């Protein structure tokens, strides 16, 4: 087949082929994004996402949106600027969560027998939807970075609270007070994750009393703005067609 010959003969056929192409690309991209995002996220967010006794008001809230806004920002920039398709962030998060759930269910529960209520992943969907909508309505990278990045950071904690709040109910255990999440970490033995590597409730936000979560969320939002810019450019660069030889 030579390149000069057209592959289709009628408009109807062209439409059909284009549609097939849509599904193939969507399917492929879903898994490509899943693979990249999942590996990146495990390396940067890792234990904060694996265990409920790492999901605290300070570091979990701060770290996860920052490392989680990366791929959504990059994928958005390709999908929006090249195709005007406003679902880059949602597609990334759908991929990530799919991969996370497969990993947690098959490996953490199926293979190692940690209960799922101890090792479920964090929810990023509210922030991803808002990020996509802001880019679509504003058609502006700067506005998306600033408003969307902030929203991504701010929506993370409340978006996960309905899932983790029940695990923050206190118990008295052999004369010590702890949350149910702490107790899960204590009960379900992890030989490779001793308690001291747990990075929770550390930081210098002591003056804010008990309202540290909103402060952490704001801080996370601000850093997410910067990371958004960075990864949006990565996406633009990566989405260039200069690599492909034109015919």
């Amino acid at each position, binding site marked *: *087949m030579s390149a000069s010959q057209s*592959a*289709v003969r009628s408009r109807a056929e062209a*439409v059909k082929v*284009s549609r097939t192409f*849509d599904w193939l*690309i*969507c399917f*492929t991209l879903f*898994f*490509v994004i*899943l*693979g990249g995002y999942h590996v990146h996220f495990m390396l940067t967010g890792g234990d904060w996402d694996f265990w409920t006794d790492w999901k*605290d008001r300070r570091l979990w809230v701060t770290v996860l949106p920052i490392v989680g806004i990366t791929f959504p920002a990059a994928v958005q920039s390709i999908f929006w600027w*090249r*195709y*005007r*398709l406003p*679902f880059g962030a949602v597609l990334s998060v*759908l991929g990530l969560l799919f991969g996370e759930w497969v*990993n947690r269910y*098959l*490996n*953490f529960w199926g*293979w190692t*027998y*940690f*209960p*799922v*209520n101890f090792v479920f992943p964090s929810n990023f969907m509210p922030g991803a*939807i808002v990020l996509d*909508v802001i880019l679509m*309505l504003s058609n502006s990278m700067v506005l998306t970075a600033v408003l969307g990045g902030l929203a991504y950071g701010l*929506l993370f904690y*409340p978006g996960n*609270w*309905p*899932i983790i709040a*029940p695990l*923050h*109910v*206190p*118990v008295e255990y*052999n*004369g010590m*007070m*702890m949350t149910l*999440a*702490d*107790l899960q970490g*204590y*009960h379900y*033995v*992890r*030989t*490779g*994750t*001793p308690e*001291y590597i747990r990075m*929770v409730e550390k930081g210098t936000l002591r003056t804010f009393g008990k309202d540290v979560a909103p402060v952490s969320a704001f801080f996370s939002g601000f850093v997410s703005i910067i990371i958004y810019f960075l990864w949006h450019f990565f996406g633009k660069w990566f989405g260039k067609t200069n690599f492909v030889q034109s015919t």
Partner: protein
Amino acid sequence: MKLIKDKVAKLSFVALLVTVTAAMFYTPTASAHGEKSQAAFMRMRTIHWFDLNWSKEELKVNDTMTISGKFHVFAGWPETVDKPEISFLNIGIPGPVFIRAGSWIGGQLVPRSVSLELGETYEFKVLLKARRPGDWHVHTMMNVKGGGPIIGPGKWVTITGSMGQFTNPITTLTGETIDLETYNLSNTYFWHAFWYALGLAWLAYWARKPMFVPRLIAVDSGKADSLISPTDRKVALAFAVGSIAIVAMSMSSTNQQYPVTTPLQAGLLRGMKSIEMPAPTVAVKVDDATYRVPGRAMQMTLTVTNNGDSAVRLGEFNTAGVRFLDAKVTEDTTGYPDDLLAEEGLTVSDNSPLAPGQTRTIQVTASDAAWEVYRLADLIYDPDSRFAGLLFFYDEAGNRQMVMVDSSLIPSFI
């Protein structure tokens, strides 16, 4: 077209592989059988476990057992390992086959990390509740920050029954009794499914219409703005506003349902109570120590002085959890793991009672296959070829005293 299709198909396959690898890549370490591969000096010169007792060898799911004993934090802690200022009393099992229902050092519950002092001896206890049937090697274990896991002796324990019967009832401070094994599970599934469905709905809205090729053509020909209709904008706004509203509402209803929540508890526990060990009345000087590679035996020349008021005999040498006993002096009654017990492994040139005030130089040989099996002999390849261990002397009344020995070790290959 076929060419492109093939390429895309190939790419999809690669992507799938990448994904599967990525998703399958990480499993939290399940194996606890690192004991033999751990450097010998780590096991001989850091934490000395002794007087260990595994309360059961077989138990049913939901039954409990304890591992209790003492550990001595070696005063000559190796320089290459961080000091145990931040340590965690763990348990070496292949994943959560038991749950750790409690653990104590010197009577203090230690769900968090603790600070240990060099040269001190501590009493400990770990309470385990059986969860998953099987034969499991259950080790004592101390994690030391900057030093890694220090694995102690292990014993095989059999759990019978079925994991489906396992329950973990906990009563919260709000007065509710829950089963921590399944608590909050349906709530977790519900919210994850809900948000995933919302994300899919957003994707589906855009996937209804042709996506990549026609839109790329439109964008490239400057008609990008025509691709977003006013309806699209309304739908998008509804999605965003709806998402924020759902987050706000679900958060406030959660707060109503769970008015009492506390932050995660963390922080180092200091001031662990150690055992008051009476100063030993037996003084031991190591004149020399050699390890005979072909004989799998360690030979020490010791000068022993009895400063007490009762005659003593050497009964046991304990290093890295391996116990070499002189059967004429003492025997094990606790069911200590066979592979770590050399009931007649200790030979003393003259083990007649050493009277008070006397000094004697003795040849002590500790020989057993355990030197090889537990790779303690690899000590001679360590950067700092020293050994350390505990000597137990017994007086006529059966009282025991513990003396540390610490010396360099010369290998002998003939």
